[in-house]
């Protein structure tokens, strides 16, 4: 018996993007959504481990991939010490009864054509080969335990006859009837009304006390995670940015993204209003995740070494030119559609203008605006008829141990910062 019921190492899950028409056959077009992009974590027996993040961060994909409901692109998954990463479905099947999942939407996770009883006994019939009478007895028992009573009556009902809370209890009963060792609970209370949410959470805690399963608890709700998780991992665009004991992370978040999330949660006390320090913009496209730290374009405390690249400069111009006065004054290097970016480079064709003068305008702007982005610019040059803005490559980013947790951020770990660069002309 190993310490961890689930150990994930370097997990990657890419979803290839289907391109329209002829683009599919052009070279260099193998684009993919980087849903999960190299994450490692392990679940200790009997703990509640929270995967926390905003929509699109890869938390649900992670939950499904560790159960092999999705095929991992790379990495390894150990379940109870057994490598299940590439296990054949026939070998996996006996293990499946020990790992279950609770989905977010109770209305969509029960077959409308099956009675509640049929849904709940189904896993027993599949995995344990019991008779229908035995299965029914077990189902009635677990139904009473999850608060579906009178169980005899509800056993014969269809999902449509039940409320949302009752359906979620049925889904939980179905997951728990096999007494699994690992339960992936994917936003189990997100669809429920506030006044009954706590009851379902209490039920999950009660079932854990009774049967001791390990929960992988997936949620976007930091308050719920704080309440029920022992350890949490904060995910952003397919990466774990901070991971450790929930108590420590909530008391003293280290990663700027964790801080931002905690700051943004509305707090039900009108005497505590105030302007919040919020990151700008939204989560970028996971098909083209930002270089370096993926949070750098939105980070309020970023450094010049965090991963600034060509498109950050183009985004900067676009925002800058929201002001009509500035846009008019800098019309020579506009509009923003004239700029192209690739990797560390942003460039603009000079067209009929003198590229040297355009480069001077860009240099003036860069010198005026002091920001981690402009400080990361290595040079503004003229290459034939093109103005080129080139960034220095980012510093290497590694998860580091910081005060009892793992943090992936250049602010920690004693990375030497390079001195502020001077713009070469």
């Amino acid at each position, binding site marked *: 018996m190993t310490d961890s019921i689930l150990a994930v190492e370097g997990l990657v899950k890419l979803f290839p993007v289907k391109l329209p028409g002829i683009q599919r056959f052009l070279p260099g077009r193998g684009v993919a959504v980087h849903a999960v992009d190299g994450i490692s974590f392990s679940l200790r027996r009997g703990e509640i481990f929270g995967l926390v993040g905003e929509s699109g961060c890869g938390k649900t994909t992670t939950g499904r991939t560790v159960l092999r409901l999705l095929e991992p692109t790379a990495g390894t998954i150990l379940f109870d010490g057994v490598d299940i990463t590439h296990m054949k479905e026939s070998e996996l099947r006996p293990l499946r009864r020990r790992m279950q999942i609770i989905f977010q939407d109770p209305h969509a996770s029960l077959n409308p054509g099956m009675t509640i009883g049929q849904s709940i006994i189904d896993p027993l019939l599949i995995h344990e080969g019991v008779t229908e009478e035995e299965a029914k007895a077990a189902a009635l028992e677990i139904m009473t335990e999850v608060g579906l009573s009178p169980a005899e009556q509800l056993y014969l009902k269809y999902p449509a006859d039940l409320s949302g*809370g009752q359906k979620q209890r049925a889904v939980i009963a179905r997951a728990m009837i096999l007494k699994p060792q690992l339960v992936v609970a994917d936003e189990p209370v997100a669809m429920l009304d506030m*006044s009954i949410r*706590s009851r379902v959470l209490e039920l999950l805690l009660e079932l854990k006390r009774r049967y001791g399963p390990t929960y992988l608890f997936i949620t*976007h709700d930091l308050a*719920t995670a704080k309440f029920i998780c022992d350890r949490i991992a904060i995910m952003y665009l397919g990466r774990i940015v901070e991971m450790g004991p929930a108590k420590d992370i909530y008391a003293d978040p280290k990663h700027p993204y964790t801080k931002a999330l905690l700051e*943004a949660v509305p707090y039900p006390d*009108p005497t505590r209003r105030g302007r*919040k320090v919020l990151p700008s913009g939204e989560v970028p496209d996971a098909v083209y995740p930002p270089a370096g730290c993926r949070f750098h374009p939105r980070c309020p405390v970023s450094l010049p070494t965090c991963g600034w690249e060509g498109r950050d400069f183009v985004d900067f111009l676009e925002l800058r030119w929201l*002001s009509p006065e500035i846009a008019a004054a800098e019309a020579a290097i506009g509009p923003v559609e004239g700029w192209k970016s690739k990797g560390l480079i942003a460039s603009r064709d000079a067209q009929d203008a003198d590229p040297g003068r355009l480069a001077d305008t860009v240099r003036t702007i860069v010198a005026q605006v002091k920001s981690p982005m402009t400080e990361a610019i290595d040079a503004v040059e003229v290459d034939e008829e093109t103005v080129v803005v080139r960034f220095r490559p980012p510093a290497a980013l590694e998860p580091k141990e910081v005060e009892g947790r793992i943090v992936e951020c250049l602010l920690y770990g004693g990375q030497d910062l390079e001195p502020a660069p001077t713009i070469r002309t």
Partner: protein
Amino acid sequence: MEEVLEAEGLRVHYTTRRGFVKAVDGVSFRVYEGETLGIVGETGCGKSTLGKAILSILPPRTKVEGALRFQGQDMGSLRPDKLREIRGKDIALIFQDPMTRLDPLFTVEDHFVETIRAHEHVSKAEAIVRAVKALASMGIPESRMKHYPHEFSGGMRQRIMIAMSVVMNPKLLIADEPTTSLDVIVEAQILEILADLRRAYKMSLLLITHNLGIVAEVCDRVAVMYAGKFVELGGVRDVFRQPIHPYTQGLLHSVIHLESKELYSIAGHPPDLVDPPPACRFHPRCPHAKEICHIEEPAWVEFRPGHFAACHFGKDFL
């Protein structure tokens, strides 16, 4: 303070195969100039129906009773064309899911031009100038005017919706769960935008939500709705600090927030609005219910200045 909207004894009944659904059942309130009034309640309490009733955009064969006055005008007596003039211009609406409210075949520019020219006789060029300004104030550059809704992120779409609602400089903005489909950081961004707009344009905001945290952060007053009725209405500080109705107490207690010490939930389930419980509708779930609560409907009483509730035992909770 001047009132922008006044509802008196508002009732909305839907006809369904199972019978009358009393989604809104005798609701009275006022919205004052420049204030934010929150309407808070759980799924199916009638809060969205209330918002739609104000704009008269309910489905056909819906029965609406009671009086609705907007800036002193009786909305019920207005001709449909006059109503259309007010709707979208003086009263604007922001929905929960911006993707389904923007036409996928229209560019952002098309949306704005259509909206502006439906209400004012201006040239297309002038409409575009105004659209660019409204969008820029939401942080959306002119370069994106020709883009289609699917080319924007969820937060951007909601910004576009907000820009479109305020471009006509409305007196009253009704926002129905404006941030529910958004992530927490973008939600906070949108709430700040709404607060800024309200200050800048001096408009009133009716914010419909299930999220008490949002109410606490942006509303001046709040009405708590349960099973088609208001159970409590008052200043946000009063209602949060000293809730009078046991439902409000339970709801506040059941919010899981970052400083929660225990899990709490209200017993039972919200009632079926086809056949709601008699008298006080909350009595089957109320920990303080006594005999009178089954028999007699509680009166709407002002327990403190400006703080109303409908509970027989309201005095006990002061």
